[in-house]
């Protein structure tokens, strides 16, 4: 079953435009001027139940607007959305029982209360019975390993502990879909990894559908099986992570440490990314030149060390953003 169905969704905003200086300010009072921005432009996609989807794009691409339409906060200009079979704009309250939201940059916990009091509070908000809430808190406490700080006021928790509690709060009512907006922002690598493990565990144990937006490629790479890239309000890529990587795996990064410095000339299929002293970094397009042929251009006796790797996902995504920008231009 599809958890989310988005059909030809569009949304525009009217933004006030003002000329420079005091004169412009006065003019905008008497004769305001507006510009229409196409935030989301005719997008369609489906998300299956239990899927972990990365919904990414550069700032201003339309991610946030799409999430807000999916959660019933914004009304679409055109098109339709269905989340767990519910129309978000018509039945926002009914939908709120089916979804959970975590915004890494916006806390929903009450800072002066302990996580336990917060969980009880949100349990009441979502109409859980007393004993039901207690059982759920006990369960989540174990899964998310909260024992140590469940009775410490939230304001005294570390960012990693707070994010864990934010996720628990959003799960208290057993939502079918969880919208995670930059859940690991500002966290150190160890805590990030910990949060990712918990998200995976949650998806596995509760079959929660996860709709993730993040600028952190690690989140996307380690959690998601499918990726949707949006830019300028349109979907520029909707593919499985495997396909995306496969498509770009024909390009390899070759890093060579040389005994003596050498001048490497670029050829068709070989791009010199960096050449500094005895260190050389090349990108080889294997559809045009295979690795063995590329390496033949370097004297084997001159090679001290060599490392061949795939193009980082971050570079792939940046490239897709750029490609789209150039196409639009």
């Amino acid at each position: 079953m599809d958890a989310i169905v988005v059909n030809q969704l569009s949304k525009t905003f009217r933004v006030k435009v003002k000329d420079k200086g005091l004169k412009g300010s006065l003019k905008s009072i008497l004769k305001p001027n507006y510009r229409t921005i196409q935030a989301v432009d005719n997008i369609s996609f489906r998300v299956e139940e239990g899927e972990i989807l990365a919904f990414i794009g550069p700032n201003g691409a339309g991610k946030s607007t799409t999430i807000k339409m999916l959660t019933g906060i914004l009304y679409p200009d055109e098109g339709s959305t269905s989340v767990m079979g519910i129309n978000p704009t018509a039945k926002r309250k009914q939908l709120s029982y089916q979804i959970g939201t975590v915004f890494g940059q916006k806390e929903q916990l009450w800072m002066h209360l302990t996580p336990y009091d917060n969980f009880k509070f949100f349990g009441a908000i979502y109409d859980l019975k007393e004993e039901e809430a207690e059982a759920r808190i006990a369960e989540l406490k174990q899964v998310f390993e909260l024992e140590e700080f469940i009775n410490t006021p939230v304001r005294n928790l570390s960012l990693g502990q707070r994010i864990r509690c934010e996720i628990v709060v959003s799960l208290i009512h057993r939502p079918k879909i969880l919208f995670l907006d930059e859940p690991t922002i500002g966290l150190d690598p160890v805590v990030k990894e910990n949060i990712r493990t918990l998200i995976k565990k949650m998806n596995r144990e509760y079959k929660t559908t996860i709709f993730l937006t993040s600028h952190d490629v690690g989140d996307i790479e380690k959690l998601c099986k499918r990726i949707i890239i949006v830019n300028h309000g349109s979907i520029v890529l909707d593919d499985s992570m495997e396909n995306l990587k496969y498509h770009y795996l024909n390009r390899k990064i070759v890093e060579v440490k040389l005994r003596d410095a050498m001048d490497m000339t670029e050829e068709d299929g070989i791009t010199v990314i960096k050449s500094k002293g005895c260190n050389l970094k090349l990108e080889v397009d294997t559809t045009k030149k295979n690795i063995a042929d590329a390496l033949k251009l370097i004297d084997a006796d001159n090679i001290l060390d060599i490392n061949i790797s795939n193009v980082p996902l971050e570079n792939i995504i940046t490239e897709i953003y750029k490609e789209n920008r150039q196409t639009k231009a």
Partner: protein
Amino acid sequence: MRKYLFILKATLMESLQYVLNILLGFITFFMLLFVFMNLWEYIYSDSVNLISGYTKEQMIWYVILTEMIWFSCRNPTLSFQISNDIKSGSIAYSINKPYHYIAFIIAKHLGEIAIKSLMFMVAGLVIGYCFLGAFPVIHLYQLPAIILSFLFGILINAFLKMSISVLSFWIEDSTPFHWIYDKMIIVLGIMFPVEVFPLWAQPMIRFTPIFVVTYGPAKLIIDYSNSMALQVLVSQLIYFIISLSLLLFIYQRGVKKLNVNGG
């Protein structure tokens, strides 16, 4: 309803962390009381027994009671939080929860002012007793009307302040409107009872929120009569309905406006 009681309880628990802040608020409370008690003491010392129908004791209790109401009701949640939620877009994260944002803020407001009101009430009564040597006489049968009038006063004030705050959907800064409302209550509703003002101005003042927020509840304590109780409660009921409808109307329109600006 249970969820709103939980919101009230959670806020109450949170406000217990701010008892010291509340105590700092007492400085202005004491200063204002000191000035006005001495002012009325001085005016009444000129061998006058009644001013506009009020004895010295009634006049001083009026100032104490209205100040108690006003200082208890002052709450940044009603002004700054709503305005900030709207301007920063944070309101979006509240309206996708299974509660009504307006009811949420009211429950939060009541939780936040509960401790504060109790503290101001005790402080006001102690000061009044020390200064005048006696409490106003209240009979048991008068209590329901008095309590009801105080509750109505608190809620109407909250609705009006919130109505001003939700204007932030359209205007950059609602602070000047709050300033006008607050000063109107302080100058016309706390310092002097309505009867002190010129006869021509009194009917107009009786139509303002002053009559239902501060004057009415205080008047029922210092000079209770059934007719006055009826007049105050009926006015409050009308104000309650109008101010709540106005608030909900502006809010509903505003949320649609948020839909235009969001994203």
